[in-house]
């Protein structure tokens, strides 16, 4: 059986599974549609949160970023997991007790202000749309590489599948489909890693293999890698290259950005009790950690394998001749994501750190997908990785579309435009909003704005600088009032956006940038790390404005008092 048929069978089987689950878990009420009827077991919810959180970026890009960035990229590993500690202690249990459906709803009620709610809706929609574009592009890439259809056809197939189970099932359908998608993606990520770890170190657990001895040299794997990199003139894998200040602030931004992303927060509205909300964050991190503890091993081992492929006789000998290149190199050359240019005309693949003499360029995003081929693993493993990449992209896209549609139908239509709308009408408008969101995401996936990659920094910046501080102050302070919260959110938002635009260009038009991330405006703070400063500005402004204006009303103090105490959470179930 050829590779194409194998890919088709494995991907087709997983899609049939998702559709079957969607039909089984149809949503009948708004409570089921928005919050899965609040009947989801915390372990199941943790697994769904894991799939929701781990996007095409985690599955496809992260190992490649680590492979080429080494120690500095630990910020991603710590940032994208450490945020769950903040969620579990500072947000999830109290928001579950509050017992409504959306993040803007809490901000609007707690700060008794429609303006605050609208600002939150705007942040949510910008952050979520940005993310969806990335997922849709990922779906297109995975389809075109593995199923040999063109990008557009791949996107339509992906959009149709998401449309089917998200519109039909709402949060309930999405949650149970995500459980299946989690299983597919974790198996697909782990199996090639185990094979490769066994080949290189003899240790079947990749996370332990990373710190074991390489069988080829008898020295630790990382020492071997550092030695090869030094021979070729690359910087050391384990040394710090970035400044400590930027590394610190980048990690902070990713952590509070994670805790402030609405599509992650709403997951904790689906569990039955406050008690479950606390442990569900832990289960989510267990399922995320299974991938995140493997990712650094995949990164380091892929880098080692790549060098060994180009220099089969060691870095002191001549590199591989171009006409003897393996099949996977030829395949990826066709996508343009891997290129060879014979600068010195000797027919050999010279791979070095020097830009003028290096002839081999590998796009970081292909590392995870090409990994099983680089390690010469069997065909079914390659098919599995294709299905895993699609599961990661589709599950995150569905979660984001859910967050967008509930913000539109619940926070805009029901609360501001037509408060008299019936439950049936609201359910209908949520489904229509979801269908429109899918259409917009598909369009943007087909015509990705040139700035798609940069806007990810914006999405995290927005979540870190606006949503996280507003939620935290709403729970931990009774004194922050409507004016303080609105001023804080706007101040955090504006400084962050301005700082990003100063470095990436106004509205991401590159010519208009006054600074660059290699030589930033403030000290060594890159625009991607500025969300943490934006959050600080938000806290400070909200504090001073609130103290200069009137105290919060008694009913708001009572509301804060009630979210702090678990008892009485079941009242929300029938909401």
């Amino acid at each position, binding site marked *: 059986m050829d590779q194409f048929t194998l890919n088709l069978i494995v991907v087709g089987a997983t899609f049939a599974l998702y559709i079957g689950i969607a039909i089984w878990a149809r949503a009948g009420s708004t409570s089921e549609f928005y919050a899965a009827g609040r009947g989801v077991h915390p372990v199941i919810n943790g697994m769904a949160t894991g799939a929701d959180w781990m996007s095409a970026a985690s599955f496809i890009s992260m190992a490649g970023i680590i492979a080429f960035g080494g*120690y500095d990229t*630990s910020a991603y*590993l*710590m940032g994208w*997991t*450490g945020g*769950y*500690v903040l969620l*579990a*202690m*500072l947000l999830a*249990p109290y928001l579950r007790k509050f017992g409504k459906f959306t993040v803007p709803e809490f901000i609007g009620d707690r700060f008794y202000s429609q303006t605050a709610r609208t600002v939150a809706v705007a942040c949510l929609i910008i952050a979520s749309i940005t993310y969806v574009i990335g997922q849709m592009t990922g779906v297109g890439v995975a389809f075109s590489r593995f199923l040999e259809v063109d990008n557009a056809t791949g996107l339509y197939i992906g959009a149709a599948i998401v449309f089917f189970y998200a519109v039909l099932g709402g949060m309930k359908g999405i949650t149970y489909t995500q459980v299946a998608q989690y299983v597919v993606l974790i198996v697909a990520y782990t199996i090639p890693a185990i094979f490769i770890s066994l080949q290189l170190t003899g240790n079947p657990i990749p*996370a332990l293999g*990373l*710190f*074991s001895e390489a069988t080829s040299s008898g*020295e*630790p*794997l*990382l*020492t*071997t890698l*550092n030695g090869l990199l030094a021979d070729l003139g690359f910087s050391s894998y*384990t040394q*710090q290259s970035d400044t*400590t200040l930027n*590394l*610190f602030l980048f*990690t*902070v931004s990713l952590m509070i950005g994670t805790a402030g992303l609405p599509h992650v927060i709403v997951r904790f509205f689906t569990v039955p*009790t*406050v*008690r479950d909300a*606390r*442990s569900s*964050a*832990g289960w989510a*991190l*267990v399922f995320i*950690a299974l991938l*995140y*503890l493997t990712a*650094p091993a995949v990164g380091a081992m892929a880098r080692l394998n790549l060098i060994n492929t180009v220099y089969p006789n060691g870095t002191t000998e001549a590199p591989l001749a171009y006409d003897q290149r393996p099949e996977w190199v030829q395949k990826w050359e066709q996508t343009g994501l891997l290129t060879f240019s014979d600068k010195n005309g000797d027919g050999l693949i010279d791979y070095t750190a020097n830009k003028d003499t290096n002839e081999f360029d590998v796009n970081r995003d292909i590392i995870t997908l090409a990994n099983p081929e680089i390690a010469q693993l069997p065909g079914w493993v390659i098919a599995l990785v294709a299905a895993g990449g699609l599961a990661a992209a589709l599950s995150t896209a569905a979660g984001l579309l859910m967050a967008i549609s509930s913000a539109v139908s619940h926070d805009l239509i029901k609360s501001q435009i037509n408060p008299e709308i019936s439950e049936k009408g609201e359910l209908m408008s949520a489904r229509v909003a979801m269908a429109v969101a899918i259409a917009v995401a598909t369009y943007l996936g087909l015509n990705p704005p040139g700035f798609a990659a940069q806007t990810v920094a914006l999405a995290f910046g927005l979540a870190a600088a606006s949503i996280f501080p507003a939620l935290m102050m709403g729970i931990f302070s009774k004194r922050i009032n409507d004016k303080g919260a609105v001023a804080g959110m706007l101040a955090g938002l504006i400084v962050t956006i301005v700082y990003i635009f100063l470095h990436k260009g106004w509205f991401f038009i590159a010519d208009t940038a006054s600074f660059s991330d290699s030589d930033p405006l403030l000290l060594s703070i890159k625009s991607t790390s500025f969300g943490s400063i934006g959050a600080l500005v938000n806290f400070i402004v909200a504090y001073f404005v609130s103290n200069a204006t009137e105290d919060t009303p008694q009913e708001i103090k009572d509301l804060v*008092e009630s979210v*702090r*105490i*678990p*008892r*009485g*959470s*079941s009242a929300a179930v029938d909401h």
Partner: protein
Amino acid sequence: MASQQDSSAYWSKNISIIKGCLIVWFVASFGMAILLRPLLSGIGVGGTDLGFWFAQQGSIIVFLILIFFYAWRMNKLDAEYGVDEE
């Protein structure tokens, strides 16, 4: 329902548990993996140093333990103050 005094005692207990957990959270990530890494460079772990291990694996393991500890500790506190869910 708990009285006003009980609930403020419960809340300040919660705050102090959170503070303790967040100190550990900070030390395991920003401390061991970034700020203190130069001081710990003498301690070797599989071809590199302890700071690198904390940055790529240790911090994540500590985060996991922290969340489950917090959930367990708060469930106990809820029962002590009679504010657990019926």
